[in-house]
């Protein structure tokens, strides 16, 4: 008998009724749940929120706004795939355009442009603007990026960009 049982001789009625086999059966149900979850992901056609959609990567160009509507250092919100697919367009201070899905890769809050980086206000996560990599806070995966072009006097979203796999060093200066 372990020491703690001698010190605290509690007699629990349920203690004798939960054996290893019952515990293993419970773990088997847990294991089956994970298998069912993976199966659900496999058969689900609609992409998860914030995830790129490779099946619709050629969705076609979408005109967001006029070229002059987004000045350097500012941002504009838009939807791309459907009304729930919230995205953010940013013109950096260099004049370059970047577009990302707004869904934070941590817990799905909407990121916003703070003038230097994309910020998730829920848990203070930050993403650099060049490629959408997390640079501070709890997020560990980059944002889902969209291809953006300027043509015919407007700003167009022309498709999905593959997620980058190698982080860039943040410019600390």
């Amino acid at each position, binding site marked *: 008998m372990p020491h703690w049982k001698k010190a605290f001789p509690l007699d629990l009625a349920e203690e004798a009724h939960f054996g*290893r086999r019952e515990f*293993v059966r419970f*773990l088997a149900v847990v294991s089956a749940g*994970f*298998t069912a979850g993976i199966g659900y992901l496999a058969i689900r056609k609609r992409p998860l929120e914030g995830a790129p959609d490779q099946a619709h990567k050629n969705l076609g160009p979408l005109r967001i706004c006029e070229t002059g509507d987004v000045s350097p250092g500012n941002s504009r919100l838009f939807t791309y795939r459907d009304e729930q697919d919230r995205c953010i367009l940013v013109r950096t201070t260099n004049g370059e355009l970047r577009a990302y899905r707004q869904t934070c890769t941590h817990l799905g809050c909407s990121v916003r442009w703070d003038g230097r980086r994309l910020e998730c206000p829920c848990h203070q996560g930050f993403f650099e603007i060049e490629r959408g990599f997390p640079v501070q806070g709890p997020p560990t995966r980059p944002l889902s990026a969209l291809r953006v072009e300027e043509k015919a006097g407007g700003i167009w979203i022309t498709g999905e960009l593959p997620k980058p796999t190698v982080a860039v060093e943040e410019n600390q200066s």
Partner: protein
Amino acid sequence: MTPSPKSQLSMAALGLVLVVVLVQVYLFETVLSAVLDGQRGLLPGAFAVSAVLTGLVLWIALKLPSLDRKP
């Protein structure tokens, strides 16, 4: 054959099941991250591996005869 209600699994069997469930947790987390990154190609393989692991756990839980002492 249904095991006797009084039979107990061995600690080795219990440990093996715990390891398998930990592998399942890691596998699911990895698959979910990959899907969120748009990589769906690994789903069929991951599902097959997960199903095999679940089959092993179910076999241990339901069919494995008692390997331990009788109370």
